[in-house]
């Protein structure tokens, strides 16, 4: 065994990889050799820390020093100063968005302080390509425990008692789902992991697969034991190459150690896992469409019941769970249902991972106890709104979710409160919006997505989403009709009650929730032909304020269509007919003399 005095962890998740962490690792290794430090300092590739906008991220242990936005050029200094002389390189440290004080240690940073990492507990801590590191952090001990000490019924009871609900969107109690499949008659059963992760902006499942793949494998084996299945499949999108690579390696390593395969721990239980790559259609994340796709056919949903627990893959009893749901399982078995149930709210236990994005200072991946308020997420963890603008709303739950206004900032987030507010947990995408966001435009954006991703099998979704999108587009183009709001509401109601799968059924949510909280914006677009947030191009016009214009002519010189004219030292004028509303003049004007309304 080699003993290193220091471990340097560099993130190789998708985020940091795209900001070039691979080259960083190679250069660092070279620098260490040049300084004769390669036997003292070990470089470890890890999964995502969650603080993606600061990547590439590098954490140095045992001190736990957190360096961000490290470039290859910085490495020489880090090696010379920190590794040779023990002096932390101040300039690469993190400082909170609202202060200039540098924070040295990882766990002192506000972004991490309010988090509680369960599903992500190994991400950014272990090398995901080494099964030994997972084992060193108690990996596969939960599987050993269930095989040695528990009956399948006891496993199911424990999961039920924990109160774990599906993290893939629906929030269905996981233990109950397992119980249905365990009780369903049949000699062949299956365990399927839903790693399709289709919600735009959500990337928690990817981070778990990249940072802690064995947690999912272990959980699937536990599920197999609980329901009496000996084959599992992971359905992962081909657009996640790093996740696919790590999963492939993880499965190989687990097989080699006999943690997958025949007669695991000599206890007479067999379980193996195969990968199935999806082509990235959103609808393939819906469970029945996913199963159809695994079978090798076109991924389209089918009516339920029968539910997969009774008739799933190849008509056999099947449980299908989300990646994050599975990632919680080994921890529940290890630390007990009571430990898990001690976190969260009455009906939503444990933690939830959110992908924080939009007009917020700290973006990235966070995990918080259920029941954390939006205010804590936006202001304490997220550091507040970008450029200190005013908070307007968060869009939560992806295209099936909804918008939550400022008045509800103190609502504890859990499955039921979100539904009551007209949104939903979804997979945990959380987009923060400031006052410059037009809510009609946001609804249109999400409808564009669902309309495009509708598989076309059922008319309510195929035709309904198209009609709703047409109306929304018309409103944002200033051609809205007085009856449009009523029509949208009527369409929404019909689609909700008649679409085949949840893709169609939830597609009106972005419209309904914005209508609920921001109806006045729809009315301003339709009746006054105004976009209050100043986003919808067709409803804007640019004017030069005479008093403020100094007649410098800069705007006229920058106008791409020569729509501005005037004499030097006299106020200029914009020709509305010619203006294409590009905003170049406003950007260039040094006197704030151009107004957009």
């Amino acid at each position, binding site marked *: *065994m*080699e*003993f*290193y*005095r*220091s*471990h340097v*962890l560099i993130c190789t998740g998708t985020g940091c990889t795209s900001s070039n962490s691979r080259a960083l690792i190679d250069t660092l290794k070279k620098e260490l050799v040049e300084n004769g430090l390669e036997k*003292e300092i070990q470089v470890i590739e890890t999964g995502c820390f969650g603080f993606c906008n600061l990547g590439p991220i590098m954490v140095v*242990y*045992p*001190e*736990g020093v957190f360096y961000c936005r490290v470039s290859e050029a910085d490495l020489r200094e880090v090696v010379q100063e920190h590794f*040779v*002389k*023990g*002096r932390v390189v101040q300039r690469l440290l993190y400082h909170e968005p609202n202060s200039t004080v540098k924070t040295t240690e990882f*766990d002192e940073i506000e972004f991490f302080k309010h988090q509680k990492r369960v599903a992500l507990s190994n991400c950014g*801590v*272990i090398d995901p390509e*080494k099964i*030994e*590191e997972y*084992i*060193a*952090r*108690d990996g*596969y*001990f939960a599987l*050993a425990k269930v095989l*040695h000490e528990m009956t399948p019924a006891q496993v199911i009871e424990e999961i039920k008692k924990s109160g774990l609900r599906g993290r893939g969107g629906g929030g269905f109690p996981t233990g109950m789902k397992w119980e249905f499949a365990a009780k369903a008659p049949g000699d062949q059963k299956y365990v399927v992991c839903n790693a399709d992760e289709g919600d735009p902006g959500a990337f928690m499942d990817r981070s778990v697969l990249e940072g802690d793949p064995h947690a999912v494998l272990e959980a699937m084996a536990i599920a197999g034991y609980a329901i009496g299945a000996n084959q599992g499949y992971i359905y992962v999108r081909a657009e996640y190459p790093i996740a696919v690579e790590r999963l492939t390696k993880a499965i190989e390593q687990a097989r080699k*150690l*006999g*943690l997958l395969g025949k*007669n*695991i*721990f*000599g206890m007479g239980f067999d379980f193996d896992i195969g990968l199935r790559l999806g082509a990235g259609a959103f609808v393939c994340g819906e469970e029945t469409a996913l199963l159809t796709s695994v079978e090798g056919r076109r991924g389209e949903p089918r009516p339920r019941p029968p539910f997969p627990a009774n008739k799933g893959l190849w008509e056999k009893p099947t449980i299908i769970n989300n990646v994050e749901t599975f990632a919680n399982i080994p921890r529940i078995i290890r630390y007990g249902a009571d430990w898990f149930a001690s976190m969260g709210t009455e009906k939503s236990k444990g933690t939830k991972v959110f992908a924080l994005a939009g007009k917020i200072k700290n973006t990235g991946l966070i995990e918080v106890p259920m029941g954390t308020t939006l205010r804590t997420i936006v202001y304490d963890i997220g550091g507040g709104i970008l450029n200190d603008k005013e908070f307007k709303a968060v869009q939560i739950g992806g295209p099936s979710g909804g918008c939550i206004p400022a008045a509800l900032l103190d609502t504890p987030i859990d499955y039921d409160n979100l539904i009551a507010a007209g949104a939903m947990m979804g997979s945990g995408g959380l987009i923060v919006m400031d006052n410059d966001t037009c809510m009609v435009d946001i609804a249109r954006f999400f409808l564009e997505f669902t309309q495009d991703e509708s598989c076309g099998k059922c008319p309510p979704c195929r035709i309904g989403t198209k009609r709703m999108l047409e109306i929304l587009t018309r409103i944002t183009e200033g051609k809205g009709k007085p009856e449009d709001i009523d029509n949208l509401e009527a369409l929404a109601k019909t689609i909700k009650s008649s679409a085949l799968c949840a893709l169609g059924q939830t597609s009106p949510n972005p419209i309904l929730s914005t209508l609920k909280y921001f109806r006045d914006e729809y009315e301003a677009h339709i009746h006054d032909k105004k976009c209050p947030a100043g986003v919808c191009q067709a409803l804007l016009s640019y004017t030069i304020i005479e008093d403020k214009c100094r007649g410098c002519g800069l705007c006229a010189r920058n106008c791409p269509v020569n729509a501005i004219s005037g004499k030097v030292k006299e106020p200029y004028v914009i020709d509305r007919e010619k203006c294409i509303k590009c905003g170049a003049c406003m950007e260039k004007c040094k006197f704030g003399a151009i107004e957009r309304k």
Partner: protein
Amino acid sequence: MRSLDELKKLKAKTQKEISTREKTGKPTIIVHMGTCGIANGAREVLNAALAELKERNLTDIHVTQTGCPGLCHLEPLVTISEPGKKPCVYGKVSVENMKRIILQHVVNGQPVTEWLVNLEK
């Protein structure tokens, strides 16, 4: 994997390797490595500490380095920091001294008082 024991063995082996990444209240050997320290042989002392820990299979102890505390004439300096106790600073630490500090102080909990340089002896 044919038994739980095998898994436990594998865990024990790797757990030591990754214990560096856990910020528990472990004793830490801090070698002061400013230019003055390095010029006086702090590197060798650091390497000696690592070698000694490896030899004795002592993985519950952190080794880190830090800058010059200003006592340049007493370099190389080594601080032993233990949770809940006042840190002890040793001056003019040689490779041989380092080994004794590890054995007597870190392992057996008896600071080598005659080599201490900080006031609270």
